[in-house]
């Protein structure tokens, strides 16, 4: 599973570089995501803009990742192509995930989240 990962401030961004996230690639994806997100930073972004085909196994693996990261680490998705976006709608998982247009939008969200919690703290 090819991917790029970068750290922008306190955010880890994983960008998949595969065209398929499906039953044949989910096992590899699971491993790759744990590798990319091993840095304990609390805010993770998964950029899916390369993914043109996702199936129920793919969306299932994303639920698995969300559960793996748990309540105290945040996962946001971005770059979903319309066919991929549609799967979230049809499975009603769009209520479970935070989905934004771009990784820049996710990074901006992480900043306002942090300043909000700082203001509170």
């Amino acid at each position, binding site marked *: 599973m090819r991917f790029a990962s970068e750290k922008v401030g306190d955010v880890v961004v994983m960008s998949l570089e595969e065209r398929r996230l*499906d*039953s*044949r690639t989910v096992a590899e994806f699971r491993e790759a995501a744990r590798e990319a997100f091993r840095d304990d930073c609390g805010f993770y972004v998964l950029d899916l803009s390369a993914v043109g*085909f996702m*199936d*129920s*196994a793919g*969306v*299932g*693996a994303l*639920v*698995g990742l*969300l*559960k793996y990261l*748990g*309540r105290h680490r945040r996962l946001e998705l971005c770059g979903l192509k319309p*066919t991929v976006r549609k*799967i979230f709608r*049809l*499975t*009603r*998982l769009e*209520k*479970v995930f935070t989905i934004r247009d771009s990784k820049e939008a996710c990074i901006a969200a992480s900043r306002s989240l942090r300043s909000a919690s700082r203001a509170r703290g």
Partner: protein
Amino acid sequence: MSATAGDQVRFSIGSSFENVATLAEEVSDLCKNRKVSSPDAIDVLRLCLAEALNNIVEHAYEGAEGRPIFADVRLKSDRYEVMLIDEGKPMPGGKLPDGSCEFDSDELDELPEGGFGWMLIRSQMDTVEYERRDGCNILRLEKTFSA
């Protein structure tokens, strides 16, 4: 390709996760060649076939490779119909899973990681019919659409 009564393509493959993924792509290519008018409808068919065929390999054949799967495909510019035939185990209870998948989106630990396949098929096809006949599972998927 103008549609005549006989226009049909039958794919015969041996079960494996790789073969069924290839088959879903081949049917999509066939749609393009036969001028199926809606790219969205082609995407839908690719996904639904991938889901239904994966279920055949995983559940009907319990992962066994090289068992027969047939896909009969009929295409028109505004309609497709696919029959998938296998000789594996019948559907539980002799009928299609209902494809509902209830969950509480606030209960992270309870979220299902599977079971979305039938939901995707049922919500996107016009017709999904299952029949057990002569030791075979016969699944019929059909959809009419506009360009």
